[in-house]
Every structure is written in structure tokens, then in C-alpha cells.
């Protein structure tokens, strides 16, 4: 395995939450490498630490112990500002609850990450339109999030995750709030982005069918990797 192809390197990551007197050990030592262009599905029962791991991978949180490298840089040592920069340039998020800005158009929602990368307004619009086209919403740019179906909202969220050409898209239960058919359509979008555009994608899911489209599946239990397929 060529180390140049490694996008993510996790070395014995742990995360412990202090809740009052007790310590909650959400992650108890995760070591794993993810290569560029991978499509990884993470599965596991509720409370097993999937979201905690996603947050660390997404630079929203830092591990309690262990080292985390993204694109060859040890981001576990970065400060808040640097992490914000990484989230902006390298990572796209898709959430279970869509997390679009209310009363805001699809276009403006998609442009949001570009605002924080100081992309000139004109370019931002062009990039956002392109991202919306990639998820099949080319003529919906002026629709507000409240005027769209769940599936459409999630597509906007994917367009927003795509718009900064990230190395990595993280999706924590992206179909959790969608019906099966729409969920499958969203999964097809991820699959296509991975195949055709070579974007590395990590998905958390409960759906065994969904995990079937992934090349790799990681099962987590009690903060540890149980099996890898």
C-alpha cells in the first residue's frame, strides 16, 4: 500500500467524556487508515461511538488520546482556527437532519462554505450552481429549504458538502430521516460521487442494504472496531 494514497490515519484514538462523576469512554482505541477514493460504511448499535468518531474525523472535535493525521498533517494538534480552516477546505458534512439554513434558498445554502473561504461572489455562484447540478437540482436554486422535500433538502446538503471540492465527505446517517426509496436515491448520489469524481466518502448507516454499496464496512461496538469487511 502506497502511503501517498492514505488520506486518513488514525492511531489508537480514544475519546472520554466526563459526565459528572463518571467517565464515558465513547472511543477506546481506534486505529485505522482510509485511502483516497475509499467509500467506507461505519455500522454499529446506537451509542457505540460512531458519531464521536465522525466528529473527530471531521475536525469538529479532538480525540482525548491518540493521533489523527489528515492528508499527512497531524490535525489532532491543531487549534480551533486551524480546524475551522480544515473543515472549510478539506471536509464536507452531510447530516441526518439536513441542517440547512431556514428560510434560505438552495443556492445560498450551497454557497455557505465558500463564504468562509473568501471565494469572490461571482465564482461562488458558479461553483454552487455546478454543485447543485451534480446532485440533480439545477433548476431549484431559488427554492427555499422549507419548500423542498426531505430528499431534495438532503441533495442540497450534499451539494453544499461538495462545493469546496473537499478531499472527504462525511455523512452521519444521511438517510435516517428519509423513506427507503428516497434514501436509496441519496445513496446512489454518494456512490456516483465516489465512482465518478473519486471523492472519499465515509457514511454512518444502520441499513445493511446501504452498506452493501460500500467497498468497506467497519463495525463498531462499545468504542472499539469489532469487524472490518
Amino acid at each position, binding site marked *: 500500500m502506497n502511503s501517498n494514497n492514505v488520506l486518513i490515519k488514525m492511531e489508537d484514538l480514544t475519546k472520554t467524556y466526563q459526565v459528572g462523576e463518571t467517565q464515558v469512554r465513547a472511543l477506546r482505541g481506534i486505529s485505522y487508515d482510509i485511502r483516497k477514493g475509499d467509500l467506507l460504511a461505519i455500522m454499529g448499535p446506537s451509542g457505540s461511538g460512531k458519531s464521536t468518531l465522525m*466528529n473527530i474525523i*471531521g475536525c*469538529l*472535535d479532538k480525540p482525548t488520546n491518540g493521533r489523527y493525521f489528515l492528508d499527512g498533517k497531524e490535525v489532532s494538534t491543531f487549534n*480551533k*482556527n486551524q480546524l*475551522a*480552516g480544515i*473543515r*472549510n*477546505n478539506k471536509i464536507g*458534512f452531510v*447530516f441526518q437532519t439536513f*441542517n*440547512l*439554513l*431556514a*428560510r434560505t434558498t438552495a443556492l445560498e445554502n450551497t454557497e*455557505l*462554505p465558500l*463564504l*468562509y*473561504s*473568501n471565494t469572490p*461572489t461571482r465564482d461562488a455562484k458558479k461553483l454552487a450552481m455546478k454543485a447543485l447540478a451534480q446532485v440533480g437540482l439545477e433548476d431549484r436554486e431559488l427554492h427555499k429549504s422549507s419548500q423542498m422535500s426531505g430528499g431534495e433538502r438532503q441533495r442540497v446538503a450534499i451539494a*453544499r458538502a461538495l462545493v*469546496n471540492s473537499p478531499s472527504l465527505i462525511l455523512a452521519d446517517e444521511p438517510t435516517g430521516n428519509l423513506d427507503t426509496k428516497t434514501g436509496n436515491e441519496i445513496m446512489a448520489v454518494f456512490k456516483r460521487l465516489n465512482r465518478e469524481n473519486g471523492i472519499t466518502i465515509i457514511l454512518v448507516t444502520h441499513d445493511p442494504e446501504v452498506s452493501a454499496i460500500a467497498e468497506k464496512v467497519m463495525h463498531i461496538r462499545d468504542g472499539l472496531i469489532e469487524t472490518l469487511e
Partner: protein
Amino acid sequence: MNILRTIKIALKALSRNKMRSFLTALGIIIGVGAVIAMVSIGQGAKAEVEKRFSEMGTNLLFVRPGSRSYRGRHGGSSSYENLTEADAEAILENCDAVNYISPNVNSRAQIIYQNKNWNTSIYGTGHDYPIIRNWEVEEGEFFSEQHVKSAQKVCILGSEVNQNLFEGANPLGQIIRMNKIPFRVIGTMESKGESGGWFNRDDVIFIPYTTAQMRLLGINHIQSVDVSAISMDRSAEAMAQIEEVLRIRHKIAPGAEDDFNVRNMSDIAEGASEATAILTILLGGIASISLLVGGIGIMNIMLVSVTERIREIGIRMSMGAREKDILYQFLTEAIVLSTLGGLLGITLGVGSSQLISHFADMTTVVSFGSVALAFIFAASVGIFFGFYPARKASKLDPIDALRYE
């Protein structure tokens, strides 16, 4: 992120909640409006006072009975009856920095002309009064030295009295009765053009001071002397000369206190404009309190807004917004709100100051300084009261913010 874009985003956020934004800004609108209107009243009073004093002439001096210091026991300066016609004449003769004097004896009287009745101020003055006070005769003539010497029963009407008694008819040569004594009208004074205010200078009748002494009051002394110095530069010199002459005439021992009091116009004007400056500060200060309250209103709403938008803050942070970006976003909203409020407040303030001057018959002066100050104050209120909520927003943890329900 550049400033224009930040402002645009702030405007968008504020326009999502138009009614609330307006109500929040209302505190600032009223505050700025009140500051501008109140200060304009204060500055109007100042301008009015200064105008009156400069009209009266800055080389004017007043001599009154009474000690210069207000210590000791005496029933007010006017209780002295030691100023005489001879004193006034000695001033004119012996002080070479003085060119005109007018002995004054003032009173009030009931005036009757045909079936009309009017109560007004009677100014008994010398014949040079119009020159000293820079006040022209409109029709006819002021009384002459001869009229004064022989205590003639002639009078000159102020325009208000003229209007009230004669209603546009020619008053010259008519006989009016002043406390039942007949006086012949020989002239009218030019209007000073004031209505309302503290006192109306056109509501007055001039008669020779000798006539006032003999016919109206039955006294021998005079109440005051108006003195005109040759020039403004020489008014201090004139003052010293007057003091010297009167001390000799009143036989005041060296080191003893004067039994009279000489003041010049610029001292009086200074005192008066100081008083109006204090009025301005007072009015402006009271109005600023409402601006402060408006600022607290902004802080309150911004805190509510931050709480309501925790999820949005989380979304923005996950998309790469740094602490600074969130801080600026909320701070800009507060500043935009307060500056827009400030601009509307300026309109309100300027408008109401014009209404006040129109309907309440007061002079108001809106100066650039007061507008600029109120506006800067409003913007600072936005920064000051917007900072805490904005900082609170920027310090949120992205994961907690995203999870917030």
C-alpha cells in the same frame, strides 16, 4: 470575509424578522431622535441668547446700585436708592471712554386709549437710548433732550403696544392715558420681531425718565444707567473710569466696597450662554439615557437571537466559520441595527426639532456636531451592547451547537 458581504448577510438576517428588528431599533431611533431634538432646543436657546446680546451691542455697560459682592445683608441690589441723575451726567462728562448714557427708571402702568386697555412695561430712559441699544425708531421720533429736561408727557410705543392699541391706525399725535395721565404719542419703535419667549421686548412704552420719576413713581433717584463705551475695545477702560467717578462722587473710602455695580455686556452674555450650555448638556444627558436603554434593548434581542440561532451557528462552524467570523456576524447585526436606527433617529430628531420650533415658537438649532455625536454614540451602543451576545455565539462548541434542539 469582507465587510460589505458581512453587512449584506446581517441585513438579510435582520430582514427575516422585520418587525422584531424594527422594534429593537426603535429604542435607538427614539434615543437618537431625543438627543438631537433636545440638544437642538438647548442650542436654540443659546443662539437666541447670543443673538439678543449682540443686538444690544457689545460695548454696552450697565450701572446699578448695590454692592459688587453679594455678601452681607441687604435687601437686593435694587433697594439702594443712591444713584442719581447727577451721577449719570458725571459719567458722561468725566469718562472719556464713554460716549452715550441713558438714565433709566422703569415701571408698569395701565394704558387706556379710547375703549382699549393694556398693561405694559414703561421704560423711562434718556434721549440717547435708541443709539445705545441699537434700536431704531419706526415712525415719528424719539423724545429729545428738551423733552427730557422739561419732563414732557410724550411717549414712544413699542410695536406690540402700538398694534394692540391702534390696530394699524396712525398713532402719532394721539393721546393715550397712562395711569390716567395723558401722554402724546410722538413715535413708534421698530419691532424686535419676537413673539412668545421669556419676555417680549416690543411690549413696552418709552417715556422720558424725568417724566417717569415725577409723574409715575414720584422719586428722585434713578434705577440704573445704560452706558455705551466708545468701542468694544475700550469697554474695560470705560468700566474703570465709571467706577472711579462714582467712588469719588459717593465718597467711598479706599478699600471700602462700592455701593454700585458696573457690569459689561460681554460678562453678562458669557454668563447667559454658560447657563444655556448647561441646559444643553442637561437636556442631551437626559435624552442619552433613552439611547442607553435602547442599547440594552439591542443586547436583549441579540441574546435571544443567539439562543434561537444556535443551530445556525453550529452549521456555519461545521462549514468552516471561525470564531472571528461568528463574532463579526453577530456584532455586525447589532451595529447595522443601531446605525440604521441612528439614521432613522436623525430624521426623527431633525423633524421633531423643526416641529418644535414651528409649533412651540422656540428657536431650535440642529448642529452637525450634535447629529454626528448622536450617530456615533448610537453606533458605539451597538458595538458595546452587541459584543457580549456576539462573543457568546462565537464561543459555542460546534458539536453542541449542531445538536441543540
